[in-house]
Each structure stands twice: as structure tokens, then as C-alpha cells.
């Protein structure tokens, strides 16, 4: 209550300032009148009484001033006055203001955007009840990075029944699924979740009910808020409706609240189905009983009162029995060696699980560093510009000091000006950040993984931005504000300003630092651009252009074995009949995105050295595969129709494989075999193909072996259809879809181009290249502005001196050199410092570069060349102006 009263009073003194002042005047006037009256009563003449009363009372203005102080709103009043003054000043120099605002907006906005991303991806807790009690159960190997996060369904069941430290253990699996049929069909993201998923995660639905034990009736679905909005237009009647998912009718039983995305940060499932629906959706593959199918993450909620450490100890005790009973085994029944080696591990899961986090940790760290440097450069630049302004305003400052303004008060005014700029910059920066963080998330997404992060501004982001604003103000405002106050006012008042040595040292130091930091950015941009370029020009070993890839999931419609073989045979001939089609083939995997499996093969006549386990990448392909993707067969032959199931088992290997196992000897005709677990016959090598990259463009091509699909040990449940065309590959998609659906209208088919696939693995490189180039350009522009400003200012200050020199016979060239000399010195000093910084930071980006030395001579030369070119141009313009000035005018300059 009292607090409110006080607040009301303060507000009144602030907002109704005139009224308060008038009252004070009335009050004092009344007092004076009473005083005068009492003096008249004591016999003084009215005039004398009035004069004496005034004398006795003291200065009315002082009293009013003191009352104002007592109201404690004075600083706010002064602050608003300062803000108004600053706004007027900035409005008078729009060029400076624009540069300042834009550079601050970029610096602050880029920081806010990266922080927004980091906050959403790494720092934010899941929007569920008590996220702190969630832990992920993993297998770890002491002394090694990474962890085993996937387990079999039997392991999940075992743990759920026998681990008392968790109140719930739950799991899920994600899959893309078709919703609806015919024209309205769309691919959506689904999570198939275990019984305890929702209660364990601590999430309640916004409408209807969540999923629990759905064994009775597994064809029920809970849908996300987003999908509810998109598909049902927020109709509350959606609950109870039926949707066709994967061709099967599911009943919607609930809608999750907005912002709920499950347990994986970056994912956004549209529907949640019971884990049991897996059997409905993929009737062919029952993975629930298999110990060898490790496909499920395990997350537990700690029982109330159980600490993470206690749970870890408990899990450690249970672990060996769990692995022994439910771990994967080979055909002879031996427990998988790597699973045997795993120790139990718990990871906090309050912030959710995320593969993105690991994938983007390194690039985000680099981007974070880049935006901090950009911000520093912007601050240094602005500090320098403000310093020049402060020097120009010295006479004003001196006048204020001479009239009795306190230094603290002037400092406050200077900082207020900076704060006004920083606030303006932040406002623009926040707009930039909103746009930029959205762009960033779309750039992080690839054709395969759509990343969706909730990147609305929240308290953490706003707090961070506010902190940056204040820091910015101090960083660029303090030096100019202090330097303005440092010197004595006399010489300025005497109008001797041209004789005063400026605070040149401070501004030159700022400039050197700015150039050094800019070099860092430009060198980074050079490095990442060249990395990207190098990766783009990597010899893939195949030609991804003009190849359409269609993933066909034949098992979904129940086709297996001979039925599917017939289907693909017929499909091939129909596709070949399409105009523009040059080659049609099939494979279980494509080189980059949906690549292959790997294992250690035994090779005829090759004894591996002790401990050597050379992995070979493998793929099952149909005849024509190599022609379709443009991979050259260097020796031997391609598979053909004779390499059928009962025929002699054959294989094709790549050049690296041939070289490694057979050296200069003949590889054709030799035999290789899969490990015993596959129960496959030894295969004769009939062809050798050129090396091609797998999965990652950075890794050199691995050993590789290809088998005919017809002879594949495990018949794949889906196939990639590869179509080489003469035109744009995706243009052919609808024709291919039509042909596929002519065999079965519900056959799931997804399209991409092989080039998109290659593109997808370059996401982070492209991101870094684009962003570092952008910020490098910003740094260059700011550096140019800074240098231009400083040189212009120093030229202006030396106008009369230069005029004298010219009048006394100095050539224009020597004047030009005189001015340029200083800039050259500053730029080279900055470059030297910058190079040192580049050298000390190379380790930071090592994992992100390819084919480039981050601190290599070429990189540094390019960066330094670009930077000094821009810088010297910026210095040359004012220098030339100085050199070509008319000496008579220059001498009259003051």
C-alpha cells in the first residue's frame, strides 16, 4: 500500500511536473506573504517588510531546486532531457547516425540471433513437468567419445520392469508417414511412443487424452497442435475423427498443447502413435522380439527422492544382467562384443535429446565467435567515430565545464547519448535477429531432416540482448565520454582548437584493433569459402546431376520376394519408356544420404594383420546402377540378368578394395565372403569400379563392395529407384509417381535428386561460408568507414599545416604521402596483430575446414590483400582531397 502511494507520488512528480512546480511556487508564495504580514504587524513598512521577508527566506529558486532534488526524480528528468538532446544531435548528422545504427544492429542482431539458436537448441528445458528428473540411459565406453543410445525392445522391457530408481522408462521411434490418400496425401513426421511416454515425459494433452497402454486398440493417434491447426483448422471436434496414416485408419484421441514437440529438440512430430502401431504400419518386420534390432532410445524419469547419482549406481548394478539377457547376439549365440564392453551411463535429458546439438556444436561455436568479433568491430568503429565527434565538440564541453557543470554529470550525458544509439541499434537488431534466426534454422535443414526450433523471443533471449545493449553502450561510449572531459577547458575557450593535440593515440589504437579483428573475420571468410569451394569440387566418383531418386517402400503394401521382384522388373520397363529417361536402376542405398552398411569381409588369400579390422562399405544394386549414377567400371563387367538368385554369387569391388587386398595382382576372379553371421556364399569378383565417396565428402573413398540385389543376403524392404534423365530430374517425379501408383495406388514413394542429396551434406559448410563471407564484408565496410573517418578528421585538423607546406613548395605527391604514411602504418600494425590472432586460433576451426590451411600463407595473403586494399582506398580519398586543396583557402581555414 505504502509502496503504491510512494510510486504514485514519484509518478506525479515525473508526469505532472508543471503542476507540482506550480504548487511549490504557491506554497512558497504563501509562506512569503505570511512572513511579510508578520513583519508588517511588527510595525515595518510594507515595502521594507517584503524585502526583509525575501532576504530572510533566502533564494526562492534555490529552495525550489532543493525540493526538486528531494523528490529524487531529478535524474530521470535529466535523463529525459539528455535523451532529447541526443536525439536532436543525431538528427543533425544523419550519415553518422545511419552508420552507427546499422553497424550496431548487425553486431547486436547477429549476436541475438545466434544466442536465440543456442538457447533453443542447447539451453532450453523441455516444456514438460519437472524436466530435471529426466535422464537418458546410454552405454558408454570409458575413455572414448560418443555413446550407444539405441537399444532393443527386449532391453526396454527389461529395464522398465527391473529398474526401481525410475518411476517411468519410455521410448519412441520416429518415422515419416503418409497422411490421407490421393490428392490430399502428405508426408508427415510421426513418433511411435511406448505406454509410459506421455506420463513419463510429463506432458498432458490440450484436448482429449494422451496415449497410455494401447495394446487393446493400437490404431489411435494424438496429434500435435501444429497439425491440428493445419489439418483440422483448430476444430475441437477433431478428437474422435479418423485419419488415414500409412493407409490405416487411426482415431484421433487427443491434441497436444502448442510448443510440445516430444523429447527430441529440433524435431516436430505431427502425430504420436502407440509403439504397437509399428506392426500395423510395417506388417513384414516384427522388430519387437529381436534382440538384434537396436532402434530405441531409452529415457527414464527419476523416482521422487532418487538422485541422479543414486540412479547411476543402481543402473550400474543392473547393467551386466540386462546386457547379458537382452543384448544383441550373433548367429552362434555370442553376445555382441561392443555391447559387452559398454558400461552403464546416465545423461541429463532435461533439455531433451538432440543429434543436432552434436552436429552443429562446432559450427555454432565458430559462428558465435564470429558474431562476437563482428560486434566488437562495430563497437570499436563506433567508439572511434564518437571520439572524433567528441573532439569536435570540445568547445561545447569546455563551455559547459566552465559554466560549472559537474564532470560526472557530463559523463552521464555522454553515456546517455551512447545509450540512445545502442538502444536504437538494438531495436533494429532485434528485427534483424528475428529474421536472421529464422533463416538460420531453414539453412540448417536439409532435404532429409527438416529442423524446426521454437525460436520465439523469450525471457532468456531478451535478457541476453539487454545485457549486450548495456555492454555495447559502455564499450563504445565510455572512451569518448571520458576523453571529452580529460583536458582543461581553457584553450578551447580561447579558440585555439587547431593547436591542440587531439586524442589521436586513442583513436589510432582503436583503429589498429579494429583492423586486426577485421583481418580475423576476413581470414575466416576466406577459409570457409575455400573449404566450401573445395568440397564442391571434390571428385565424387559419380555424377549426381540429372539423377532422380525415388524411395519406394514396397513392403508397406505387403509385397515381398517374387512379387516385389516382378514389380520392379515391370516398373523398370515402364520407366524406360518415359521420354528423356536414359537409364533406370535400383539399389538398396544411395551413395551419400541413405548409404549402405559396413562390415569386415574375408578375402581369399588375405590374412589381416593382428587387430586389423578393415571395414568395407556395401550396397546391393541392380544391373545398370553404375551407369545410372555415372560411376565408371574400370575392369570386368556390370551385373546382368544372369546374376540371379540361384546362379553363381558375384560381387563388384572398387579400386581401393582391389589395391588393398590384391595389390598389383589380379582381383577379377578372386572370391570374397561376408562374415559368418550373414549365411551367405562366397562371391566371385566380376568387376572393378572407380572409387566413389560415401556418406561424407571429406572422407576419402572407403573400401567398397557391391552385390546384386537378386542375390542379397537380406532382401531389402524398400528400394531406391534411380533414374538418369536428359533434363531436370525432379521434373520427372510426377510421371514416375504415376507409373509407380499404376501398380498399387497406395505404394509410398518419396522423391529427391541425387544432387540434392550431395547438397544436403554440405549444409554446415555452406552456412559457414555464406555467413562468414557476409560478416567479413561487414567488417570490411566498417573498417573502411572507420579509417575514412579518422583520416578525414586528421586531414581536416591539419588543413592549415598542409596549406603552409603546399605554399612553401611541397609537392602534392609529398603531401599525399605525408597523409597516407600514417594510414599505412596503422593498417600494417593492425594486419600484423590480426595475423598473430589468426595463428593462435587455427585449432578452433580445424575440424571445419577442408583442403585449406586456416593460417596458411595463401589465406592470409588473400585476407590481408583485400583488407589493406579497402583500407587504403578509404584513406586515399581524404588524403587526395587534402593534397589538392587550394593553399590560400587552406590557410584561411580557421
Amino acid at each position, binding site marked *: 500500500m*505504502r509502496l503504491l*502511494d*510512494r510510486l504514485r*507520488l*514519484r509518478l506525479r*512528480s515525473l508526469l505532472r511536473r508543471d503542476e507540482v512546480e506550480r*504548487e*511549490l511556487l*504557491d*506554497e*512558497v508564495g*504563501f*509562506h512569503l*506573504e*505570511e*512572513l511579510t504580514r508578520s513583519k508588517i504587524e511588527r510595525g515595518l513598512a510594507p515595502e521594507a517588510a517584503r524585502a526583509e521577508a525575501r532576504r*530572510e*527566506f*533566502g*533564494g526562492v529558486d*534555490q*529552495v525550489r531546486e*532543493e*525540493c526538486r*532534488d*528531494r*523528490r*529524487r526524480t531529478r535524474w530521470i528528468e535529466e535523463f529525459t532531457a539528455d535523451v532529447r538532446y541526443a536525439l536532436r544531435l543525431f538528427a543533425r548528422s544523419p550519415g553518422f547516425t545511419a552508420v552507427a545504427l546499422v553497424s550496431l544492429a548487425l553486431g547486436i542482431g547477429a549476436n541475438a540471433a545466434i544466442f536465440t539458436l543456442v538457447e533453443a537448441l542447447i539451453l532450453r528445458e523441455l516444456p514438460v513437468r519437472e524436466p530435471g528428473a529426466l535422464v537418458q540411459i546410454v552405454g558408454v565406453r570409458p575413455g572414448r567419445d560418443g555413446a550407444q543410445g539405441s537399444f532393443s525392445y527386449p532391453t526396454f522391457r527389461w529395464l522398465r520392469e527391473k529398474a526401481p530408481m525410475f518411476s517411468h522408462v519410455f521410448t519412441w521411434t520416429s518415422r515419416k508417414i503418409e497422411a490421407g490418400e490421393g490428392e490430399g496425401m502428405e508426408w508427415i513426421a510421426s513418433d511411435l511412443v511406448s505406454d509410459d511416454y506421455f506420463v513419463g515425459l510429463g506432458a498432458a494433452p490440450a484436448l482429449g487424452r494422451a496415449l497410455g497402454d494401447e495394446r487393446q486398440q493400437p490404431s489411435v493417434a494424438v496429434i500435435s497442435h501444429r497439425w491440428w491447426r493445419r489439418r483440422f483448422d483448430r476444430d475441437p471436434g477433431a478428437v474422435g475423427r479418423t485419419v488415414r496414416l500409412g493407409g490405416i485408419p487411426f482415431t484421433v484421441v487427443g491434441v497436444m498443447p502448442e510448443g510440445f514437440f516430444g523429447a527430441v529438440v529440433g524435431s516436430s512430430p505431427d502425430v504420436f502413435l502407440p509403439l504397437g502401431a509399428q506392426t500395423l504400419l510395417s506388417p513384414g518386420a516384427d522388430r519387437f522380439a529381436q534382440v538384434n534390432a537396436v532402434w530405441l532410445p531409452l529415457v527414464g524419469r527419476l523416482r521422487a527422492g532418487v538422485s541422479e547419482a543414486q540412479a547411476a549406481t543402481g543402473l550400474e548394478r543392473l547393467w551386466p544382467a540386462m546386457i547379458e539377457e537382452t543384448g544383441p547376439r550373433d548367429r552362434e549365440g555370442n553376445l555382441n562384443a561392443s555391447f559387452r564392453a559398454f558400461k552403464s551411463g546416465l545423461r541429463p535429458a532435461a533439455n531433451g535429446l538432440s543429434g543436432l546439438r552434436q552436429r552443429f556444436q562446432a559450427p555454432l561455436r565458430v559462428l558465435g565467435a564470429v558474431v562476437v568479433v563482428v560486434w566488437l568491430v562495430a563497437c570499436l568503429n563506433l567508439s572511434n567515430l564518437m571520439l572524433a565527434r567528441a573532439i569536435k565538440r570540445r568547445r561545447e564541453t569546455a563551455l559547459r565545464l566552465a559554466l560549472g557543470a559537474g564532470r560526472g554529470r557530463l559523463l552521464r550525458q555522454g553515456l546517455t547519448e551512447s545509450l540512445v544509439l545502442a538502444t536504437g541499434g538494438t531495436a533494429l537488431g532485434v528485427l534483424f535477429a528475428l529474421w536472421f534466426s529464422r533463416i538460420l534454422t531453414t539453412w540448417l535443414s536439409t532435404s532429409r531432416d527438416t529442423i524446426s526450433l521454437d525460436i520465439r523471443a523469450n525471457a532468456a533471449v531478451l535478457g541476453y540482448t539487454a545485457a549486450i545493449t548495456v555492454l555495447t553502450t559502455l564499450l563504445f561510449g565510455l572512451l569518448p565520454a571520458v576523453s571529452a572531459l580529460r583536458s582543461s577547458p581553457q584553450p578551447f575557450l580561447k579558440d585555439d582548437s587547431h593547436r591542440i593535440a587531439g586524442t589521436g593515440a586513442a583513436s589510432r589504437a582503436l583503429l589498429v584493433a579494429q583492423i586486426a579483428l577485421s583481418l580475423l573475420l576476413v581470414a575466416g571468410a576466406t577459409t570457409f569459402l575455400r573449404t566450401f569451394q573445395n568440397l564442391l569440387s571434390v571428385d565424387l566418383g559419380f555424377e549426381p546431376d540429372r539423377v532422380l531418386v525415388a524411395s519406394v517402400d514396397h513392403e508397406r503394401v505387403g509385397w515381398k520376394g517374387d512379387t516385389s521382384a516382378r514389380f520392379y522388373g515391370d516398373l523398370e520397363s515402364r520407366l524406360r519408356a518415359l521420354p528423356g529417361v536414359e537409364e533406370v536402376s535400383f539399389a538398396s542405398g544411395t551413395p551419400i544420404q541413405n548409404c549402405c552398411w559396413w562390415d569386415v569381409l574375408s578375402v581369399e588369400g588375405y590374412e589381416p594383420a593382428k587387430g586389423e579390422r578393415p571395414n568395407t562399405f556395401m550396397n546391393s544394386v541392380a544391373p545398370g546402377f553404375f551407369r545410372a549414377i555415372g560411376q565408371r567400371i574400370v575392369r570386368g563387367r556390370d551385373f546382368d540378368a544372369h546374376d540371379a538368385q540361384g546362379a553363381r554369387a558375384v560381387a563388384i569391388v572398387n579400386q581401393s578394395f582391389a589395391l588393398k587386398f590384391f595389390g598389383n595382382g589380379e582381383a577379377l576372379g578372386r572370391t570374397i565372403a561376408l562374415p559368418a553371421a550373414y549365411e551367405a556364399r562366397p562371391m566371385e569378383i566380376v568387376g572393378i569400379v572407380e572409387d566413389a565417396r560415401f556418406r561424407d565428402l571429406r572422407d576419402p573413398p572407403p573400401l567398397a563392395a557391391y552385390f546384386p540385389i537378386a542375390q542379397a543376403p537380406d532382401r531389402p524392404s524398400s528400394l531406391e529407384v534411380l533414374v538418369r534423365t536428359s533434363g531436370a530430374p525432379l521434373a520427372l517425379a510426377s510421371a514416375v509417381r504415376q507409373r509407380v501408383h499404376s501398380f498399387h495406388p497406395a505404394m509410398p514413394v518419396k522423391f529427391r535428386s541425387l544432387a540434392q542429396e550431395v547438397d544436403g551434406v554440405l549444409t554446415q559448410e555452406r552456412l559457414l561460408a555464406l555467413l562468414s563471407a557476409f560478416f567479413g564484408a561487414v567488417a570490411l565496410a566498417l573498417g573502411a568507414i572507420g579509417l575514412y573517418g579518422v583520416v578525414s578528421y586528421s586531414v581536416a585538423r591539419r588543413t592549415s599545416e598542409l596549406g603552409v607546406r603546399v605554399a612553401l613548395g611541397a609537392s602534392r605527391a609529398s603531401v599525399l604521402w605525408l597523409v597516407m604514411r600514417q594510414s599505412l602504418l596503422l593498417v600494417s600494425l593492425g594486419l600484423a596483430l590480426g595475423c598473430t590472432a589468426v595463428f593462435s586460433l587455427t585449432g578452433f576451426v580445424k575440424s571445419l575446414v577442408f583442403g585449406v590451411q586456416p593460417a596458411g600463407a595463401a589465406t592470409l595473403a588473400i585476407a590481408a590483400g583485400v583488407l589493406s586494399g579497402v583500407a587504403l582506398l578509404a584513406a586515399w580519398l581524404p588524403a587526395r582531397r587534402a593534397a589538392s586543396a587550394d593553399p590560400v583557402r587552406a590557410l584561411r581555414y580557421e
Partner: protein
Amino acid sequence: MGKPSDLIQGTLDLLILKTIALQAMHGWRIAQRIQQVSGDVLQVQQGSLYPALHRLEQEGWIKADWRETENNRRAKFYSLTAAGRRQMEKELSNWKRLSGAVGLVVEGAR
């Protein structure tokens, strides 16, 4: 500028609070009353009275309203709030303790 009229720092608050404790008064009357009651020993510097009143008002210890005086002039009358009464009690006991202590020292030194 006689020495006796100088007020010990901080006592002006107490004097004001005590003076208006019984009855709302305007600034002029407060000054008069303090001077009268103290037998002309304490003279409130007019220049410091109004700032003090303003501060006490900001603290929420006194509140002000405009009323008519006995000779039909509008003046700003100050009266004690509940918080002000508590504050007065506090300062009063402080004052008693302090003056008692000073008295002891002065007596003892004699």
C-alpha cells in the same frame, strides 16, 4: 545568523513530525510553531523547511492537501500518515536515547 538557531542534523524531521502529529498545518505555521514552542531557541531555516517537507512526503510519512486557512487563503496543509506516526515513535526513542547518552557523558565529565 545566531548559532542557537542551527538545528542538529536530522532533528528537523523529528520536529516536523512531532509538530504536525496533533493537527495538520501548513509550512509557515510549522515554522512558527517550532519557534514558539522552543521559546525562540529553535529557528527553522525557511530554505531547509520545504525541501524537508518534500522529502518526508516522498517517504510517505506525511501527506499534503490544499485547505483554506483561517483568513481564507488556500495553503498546503501537511498531516501525519500511519507510517509517519511509526517513524516519529522510532525517531523519538532514538532521540531520547541519544540525548540521554549525551547527558550522561556531559554529567559524568563534570
